[in-house]
Each structure stands twice: as structure tokens, then as C-alpha cells.
């Protein structure tokens, strides 16, 4: 088993853990965390599809599945922030950003041969911007309690770390696939998988915090 395959399985387990925590406690978690559950579920579905394709297609990835997950991931994580902000202006802005990104995504994949790299970079920037926006919202609202006890703080922190970590990889993805040795790309992808595992663990911590506080207990002020 290669490093990339091993880390891929590990991060897949991370997604399963996240989905398990969310759906096991579905009635006790707040709306943004419920969306996080659907995000992890979509991750499981896309990864399962990729595993099946690899099994059938003699170890060849199907890029379209990965590209599809990029859109699903962007929309769902944006929805997490949309419900977390719970404000009209933020809702409108995020809906606009989702629509704009979807159009950008479709345009890039249809007309740009390096579009898969561009859409991933765009996703990373959008996610980082939403996380920073949520941090600003947290500071502005000045909750009385310790920030580290807020589930959405951990979600934002996870998002900002994970997508900052993958941004450079996304940016150079097309260059790497063309100019670098497949082993090097596989190694980088393995590191990206480890980032994603850490992301899933941070999100799981956020879910556990949310379960402790009860639905809407911590995310709305």
C-alpha cells in the first residue's frame, strides 16, 4: 500500500467519524453542524464512488468525481457559515458567493484545460474568506464565554487551517501533474490527505462541543 493510498483511507475514516458523530446526535446539534454532517456524508459518497471506480478502472482515478466533490464541498461548507451567521446580509452575500462560484466553476471546467486547479484555488480562497468573516463576526459580537468553547470557532479554525494548507497545492496542481514525477505528486497528495484527517478531527471536536451545549446553544448569540 502506497503512502497516498494509506493516507487516503485514514482521511476517509475521518469523514466516517464526523458523519457518525453528526447523525448519531442529529437531534441534539445545531443547524450549521447538521449541515456539516451532510458535508461529511457527501465526502463519504464521493470517496466511495472513487474507490469503486478505481477498483473497476484498474487503479485510475476519475477526475470528474474529484471535481464534483469540490463543488459539493464548497456549497456545503458555505451553507454551514450561512446558517452560523444567521443574518440577512450574510445570507444574501453567501448565496451570491455560492451562485458566483458555481458559475465560475462551470466556466472554468468547460473552457479552461487547467480549470481543475483554478476551481480548487477558488474554493480555498472562498473558504478562507468565510472563516475570516466568521472570526470578524465573533469578535464584533464579543460573546461573554470562552471562544474555545464555541463549536463554530473550531469549525472556522479547521476551515482556515485546512484550506490554507491546501491552497498552494491547489494553485500548482495543473503544473505539478504536467511537470512533476507522479511519485512526487502522490506524496503531496498524501500530505494533503493528512491535512484533511486533521480537518475532520477538528470538525469532530466542534461536533462534540455542540452536542454538549445543545442545539443553537453556542452558535447563536
Amino acid at each position, binding site marked *: 500500500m502506497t503512502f497516498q493510498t494509506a493516507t487516503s483511507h485514514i482521511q476517509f475514516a475521518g469523514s466516517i467519524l464526523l458523519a457518525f458523530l453528526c447523525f448519531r446526535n442529529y437531534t441534539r446539534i445545531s443547524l450549521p453542524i447538521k449541515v456539516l454532517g451532510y458535508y461529511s456524508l457527501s465526502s463519504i459518497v464521493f470517496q466511495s464512488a472513487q474507490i469503486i471506480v478505481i477498483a473497476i478502472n484498474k487503479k485510475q482515478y476519475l477526475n470528474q468525481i474529484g471535481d464534483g466533490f469540490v463543488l459539493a464541498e464548497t456549497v456545503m461548507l458555505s451553507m454551514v457559515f450561512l446558517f452560523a451567521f444567521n443574518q440577512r446580509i450574510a445570507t444574501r452575500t453567501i448565496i451570491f458567493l455560492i451562485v458566483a462560484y458555481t458559475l465560475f466553476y462551470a466556466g472554468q471546467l468547460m473552457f479552461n484545460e487547467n480549470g481543475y486547479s483554478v476551481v480548487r484555488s477558488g474554493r480555498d480562497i472562498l473558504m*478562507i474568506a468565510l472563516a475570516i468573516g466568521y472570526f470578524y463576526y*465573533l*469578535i464584533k459580537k464579543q460573546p461573554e464565554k470562552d471562544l474555545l468553547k464555541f463549536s463554530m*470557532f473550531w469549525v472556522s479554525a479547521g476551515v*482556515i487551517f485546512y484550506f490554507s494548507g491546501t*491552497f*498552494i497545492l491547489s494553485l500548482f496542481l495543473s503544473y505539478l501533474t504536467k*511537470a512533476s514525477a507522479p511519485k512526487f505528486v502522490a506524496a503531496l497528495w498524501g500530505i494533503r490527505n493528512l491535512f484533511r484527517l486533521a480537518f475532520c478531527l477538528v470538525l469532530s471536536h466542534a461536533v462534540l462541543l455542540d452536542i454538549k451545549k445543545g442545539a443553537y446553544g453556542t452558535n447563536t448569540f
Partner: protein
Amino acid sequence: MEPTLSEFTILFSIATGGMLLLAFAIVFFVIFYQKKMLQARLHQQQMETEFQQKMLLASLESQESERQRLAGELHDSIGAMLSTIRLSVLSLSRNEGLNKESVEQTKKMIDDTIDSVRRISRDLMPSILEKFGLMHAITEMCQQYTTVSGIPIPFTKNGEGKSLDKAKEIMLFRLVQELINNAMKHSQGTVINVSATWGNQLIIIVEDDGIGFNADEKNTSLSGLGLFNMQNRARIIGAEFSYAPEWQKGTRAIITLPL
């Protein structure tokens, strides 16, 4: 010129590391900033509380000084004038032409008025508190209230008494005075026990065997503004005031002052 694989790896690592550092800086800033804001808010709340306490203290001090002035006026001015009137009436009573019964009645009224003025003056500012301290003042107050109300109010002192500053003595005296007044008015008890225990802290207990009251019910006169005022008075001198919730019969109020 295209970068080599090792050059690219270095650049890639630096760029990713930079991004992660930036992310870390943002998260750290948010945590640090929020903690700082919380501290600032806490500090502001403390300042507001201190200011309110100072205002309350100033108000109570001015109340006490006004009481002292009134007591002095009553005792020195009206009391003295009444004594002079009494003497005049006495000299008039020697006059044969006057109705003796009427003069006696007037004398009695003047004596009663003098007693009332003395009592009011003493209640306003007991001179014994200033001269002999808190324990003597409470002892005298218990004796007076026993005489007036007919309810026995024994006062027990345990331990070696220490001298407190005047402001604290006045506050404690007023608290005990209000508690005894409340017990006489509302408790329907047959006895009111007052005790003071000196140690690392001064613990004053005022308890009765009456009907008691629920300190959690905000609409009763005892647990409403009166309780709030007493707690405020206690807080100003760094004491704690509470009602013993486990007290089965009647009411038990406890004032604890660290020494």
C-alpha cells in the same frame, strides 16, 4: 528557466508553511483579541461596581452625619428648651391662683416629650456607640427594645472583642438595628436572640422563633428592598449578609465580617 524538483519542493514548502503560519496568526489573534476584550469588559464592570459602592457609601455617610446633626439638635436645643419650659412651669405651679391639676398635667406632658426627644435622639445616633463601641451599643439597644416591645432580646458575646473603625461599627449597628426591628414587626416570635462571636471574623447572628419567611420570594417586604439594602450595607464594609436557609423555626440572619 523552469525550477528543478528540489527547488520547487523548497518553494512549495515555504509557501504552504507561510499560509499555515498566516492561518495560525489569524486564529491566535482572534483568541487573544477576544480575551483582551473580555478582560477590558470585566475591568469596566469592576470599576462600575466600585463607583456604585462609593456612591452608596457616600450616601450612607451623609445620612449618618445628618442623623448625628439631628440628634445633636434634638438633644442640645429642643431638649434644653423643654427642660427650661419644665422649670418655668414648676415655678408657675407655686402660684396659688393656678389650677394645680392642669399644671400637673402640663408637667407630665412636658416630661413625656422630653423622654420622647431623648429616645429619638438616641435612636438617631446612640452616643454609647461613639463612646464605648459596638458591643455596648448593641447591648443597650437590646435592653431598650426589650423594654419597649416586651419581647426578650438577650445579647450574647463570645470571644475577645476588637475595636473596629467607626464606619464599620455604624454599619453593623444599623444592620442589627434593622434586623431586630424587622423581627419585632414581622416575626410574631416570643424571643429574639442576638449574638456576636469574635475570632478570625466577627459573626453576628440575629434569630427569632417566629413564623419565618422565604428569602427567595421577592415580593415580601423582608426579602425585597430591605434585604437588598442590608446586603449592600454589608458589602460596603466587606461583610457578608445572608439568611440561613436551613433554619427550621423562625428566621436566622447572619452577618460575617472578616477581621
